[in-house]
């Protein structure tokens, strides 16, 4: 089935986005991306070393991938905007994973500063995918500010605690007319599959793959899980429901009347 995710008019077949921050070496990044056939890859601009002949992380990313530059390290809208503009000026493209974090203890995003930066960057023509705490009001404002997708956290970055915010994410999926991509906290392929099953457009994974015993095999496992989750989303017989559905209907007697 042809089922691409479309962001800023770009067709994306693979709904597993991969982050590049925590790998034991840069060479393995290429193997991971190839194994998972990933199409969208996040790279923190703070780690891009254009002067280096052998250590520039961009050299390890296949040309077929779309770079999603991460504004990691930005503590407010101003810093995030500066990093995004710098990324564009240095040839890293205009797809931005907007990350504004003023809390280094839990690495939780600052939704208000994220909104401010989204308004400016989207207006300048950037494709902005903001990392956010799953809050409906902010999500609506991000949509109004022309974010290309929203990236709510499943749980704090690097914790591998799974999709603790699932109820809030479900609300975003239902109410926001943008792709919802779960960004942080996914520790296992089963959790990635779950995100796709409930209707997320994609997931972004870094820690769980980068710190695995065998990152390449783990990346492939995530790829399978994401595909399985998407298939399940289309083919599950019945969505989970909060309402009772008894096997012996209480109103069955009406048929005999």
């Amino acid at each position, binding site marked *: 089935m042809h089922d691409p995710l479309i962001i800023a008019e770009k067709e994306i077949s693979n709904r597993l986005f991969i982050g590049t921050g925590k790998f034991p070496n840069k060479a393995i990044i290429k193997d991971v991306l190839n194994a998972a056939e990933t199409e969208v890859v996040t790279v923190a601009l703070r780690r891009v070393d254009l002067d280096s002949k052998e*250590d520039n992380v961009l050299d390890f990313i296949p040309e077929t991938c779309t770079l999603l530059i991460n504004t990691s*390290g930005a503590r407010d809208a101003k810093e995030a905007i500066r990093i995004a503009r710098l990324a564009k000026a240095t040839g890293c493209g205009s797809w931005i994973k907007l990350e504004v974090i003023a809390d280094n203890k839990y690495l939780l995003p600052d939704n208000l500063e994220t909104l401010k930066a989204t308004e400016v960057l989207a207006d300048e023509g950037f494709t902005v995918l903001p990392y956010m705490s799953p809050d409906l009001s902010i999500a609506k404002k991000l949509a109004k500010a022309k974010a290309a997708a929203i990236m709510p956290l499943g749980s704090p970055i690097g914790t591998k605690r799974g999709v603790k915010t699932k109820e809030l994410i479900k609300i975003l999926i239902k109410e926001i007319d943008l792709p919802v991509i779960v960004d942080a906290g996914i520790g296992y392929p089963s959790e990635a599959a779950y995100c796709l099953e409930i209707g997320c457009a994609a997931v972004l994974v870094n820690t769980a793959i*980068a710190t695995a015993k065998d990152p390449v095999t783990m990346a492939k496992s995530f790829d399978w899980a994401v595909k399985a989750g998407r298939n399940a989303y289309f083919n599950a017989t019945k969505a989970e429901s909060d309402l009772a559905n008894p096997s012996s209907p209480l109103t069955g007697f009406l048929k005999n009347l």
Partner: protein
Amino acid sequence: MSFYDVYLKYKDFPFEEYFLKISKNDIIDSLNKHEPEEEDLLSLLSPQAENFLETLASKAKDLTQQHFGKAIVLYTPLYLSNYCENECAYCGFNIRNNIPRKQLDFYELRKEAETIAKTGLKHILILTGESKKITPLSYIKQCIEILNQYFSSVSIEIYTLSRQEYKELISLGVDGLTIYQEVYNQESYNKLHLSGPKTDYRFRLDAPERALMENMRTVNIGALLGLKDFRSESFFMLMHAYYLQHKYSQAEISISVPRIRPQVDEFIPPSSVSDKNIVQIITAARIFLPRIGITLSTRENKELRDNLLPLGVTKMSAGSITTVGGHTICEPYDKKTSQFEIADKRGVSQIKETLLNKGYQPVFKDWVGHVKDEKIKI
């Protein structure tokens, strides 16, 4: 509120007496806690916890990989001057030491910067002795402007400054401050800092906070281990780190665990700190503050540095030289003119190779502090 209030709260705490009461179960409880508190830190730093060192190490390793991955940021120090007005009993730059004094001129600074930059390093830490007459802030500022042309991150480990002075350096692009309290115990501090501006304990203690009030990006603190018993000193240092992280959560707070190294006047440290003790401090630090950076300098030898790597370290110095001009114009490891003796003399490429062999990614660039290409308008 300053960290000094926290210090006063624990100043007369009977550490040794308290440690005697810590049981095996206390340590197990502390190890199992999701968010350890002050009493857990004491348990983890206790003599009894040495029996659980492997468990501490295992937990510290897991937490480090979870939060920082398998990546180590590299930097190197660059000494601008060894002129100093302070009389610190343990330091090679002590005003009483009859050593050749040297300050880099800007031509020499460029030569040093060019040589270091050729190694691929993008993070530089500048150091000076404390002499506002010979190395005034105006000189430091000019040095920073030069270094901005070679490095993407410039940090300072210089004499303590006022808020306004930190603000001025931050506006020039300085993004990191390293400052060691040296010894948290105020009585010991007063005994070891005999004369000069550094005798002001409180002004030094509050320096990280003054920089953070001006929005300094990273602050690295530490106690010079060996000046006082390491358990109480590590407790104060980590409580200081906790205080700063809690109050200035926008900043990246990190710690160092420097041990006194031999230097010119052969100062004998009043307290001993073994390799085992260093392991306990690093692992306890990681468990108590999982998100904190831990910096490991070349004060330690290569075997120990390599073994400490997985236990919590996030940043390492490489190709370090503690002599002014030691990269290009002077003998790099001259005992007479260096601040202390380097124990790990491996160059940047050797450190890089070691890290890769051990399954760690050497990170040369981890911030975008400056835009040296003037064609780029942002």
